């Protein structure tokens, strides 16, 4: 399975004065090449900011109740410390936590989409031989199994099913239209989407990395258990 898209968010108690500070916090980065930005809900309680680094495959968002990013590309680029855009994300998050009216961090969450290319017939084998699911309905055009569970303080929702090109649009797999995800077109295979959330009192790169490793290993473990990895 190859991770195709990664979404990560850190939530915190609403910062009521957020709109008074967010522009100051993101302004220093406007000197960076090719940065695109947007301010949403201007001059309201819900004012938020977006920074888009298309070439690097990142979209960042900063809101009064949380920060989030979407990354489309090779996951190995965000696993090691030093990714420049990820550093900006955590620097701005840390700046937010130092705001006068910042209360506390509540949780972080991740949604990860992964795809493995296989022949259609092999994908269907998963349906017919999946030890977790008995299918009494015969041949299906689409299917997925969904597992929801708690594990070591993490709440997990895992979906595994077949992959078709139509899933690119359905799951918005390539929002930044990166070169990395162009190979998704015209393929069939298996697709997994995992969402994990965990209560935390502070956010950091290492906690992000732990959640990413957990998400990827959970998908791998599931597929191994079905003899499909």
């Amino acid at each position, binding site marked *: 399975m190859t991770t195709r898209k990664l979404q990560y968010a850190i939530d915190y108690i609403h910062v009521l004065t957020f709109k008074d500070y967010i522009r100051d916090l993101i302004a220093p980065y406007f*000197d960076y090449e090719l940065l695109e930005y947007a301010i949403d809900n201007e001059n309201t309680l819900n004012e938020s900011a977006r920074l888009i680094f298309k070439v690097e495959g990142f979209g960042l968002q900063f809101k009064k109740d949380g920060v989030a*990013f979407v990354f489309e590309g090779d996951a190995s680029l965000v696993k090691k410390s030093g990714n420049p855009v990820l550093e*900006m994300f955590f620097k701005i998050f840390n700046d937010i936590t130092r705001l006068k009216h910042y209360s506390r961090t509540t949780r972080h969450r991740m949604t990860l989409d992964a795809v493995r290319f296989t022949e259609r017939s092999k994908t269907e084998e998963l349906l017919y031989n999946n030890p977790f699911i008995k299918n009494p309905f015969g041949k299906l055009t689409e299917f997925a199994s969904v*597992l929801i569970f708690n594990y070591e303080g993490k*709440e997990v929702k895992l979906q595994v099913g077949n992959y078709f090109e139509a899933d690119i649009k359905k799951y918005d797999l390539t929002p930044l239209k990166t070169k990395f995800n162009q190979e998704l077109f015209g393929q069939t295979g298996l697709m997994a989407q995992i969402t994990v959330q965990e209560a935390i009192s502070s956010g950091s790169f290492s906690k992000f990395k732990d959640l990413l490793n957990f998400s990827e290993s959970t998908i791998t473990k599931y597929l191994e258990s079905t003899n499909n990895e």
Partner: protein
Amino acid sequence: MSEALMRIEKKGDISSQPSAKETPIIRSNNDSISIAVSTEQPEEIALHGETISPKGFNEKFSLNIFDTQIAKDSVFRLQEGNYIEPWKLVEDVSARLIDQYDEVVVLECLIDPEAKIYMETELEKSLFDGYQLQVGALFKVSKYSRKNENRFVVRANPLLVSITDFPKVDFDKKYDGNFFNPE
């Protein structure tokens, strides 16, 4: 992939057929697994004394990458019909000036903010034209790459670098010449 096409069992009404919006769900709690079809937005799922709130699962990430403005007009911007490969930001390092001599500026670079790993590096003085070269001055050193090319940009905006990132007065390692060079 569809969430709603296979029915295993419906809680409370096994005989009825699932609707198009019903989702087969397997729930596992370390040592047990249960299977059920739920409606699309369950309020709360209780499992062996634990509670799984689906709230977070249903809070969709809704990052819109459109309707944006360009922060900085740049000659490096990829225009429509322009087939030059854009530069990609591959490194962005906080640095503190610790020495300078001849045409060289010596920097203490924070290469791993999480692990607090620093390296000493030397850059050409010409990269710092227009900046005050005082010991202790803070810089951001960015490396951009594209096929067969690298480009360095030094920024002196103090808001990009935190002085608290540089508490040390000595240095871990002498720069070995590889950090800013292509492998």
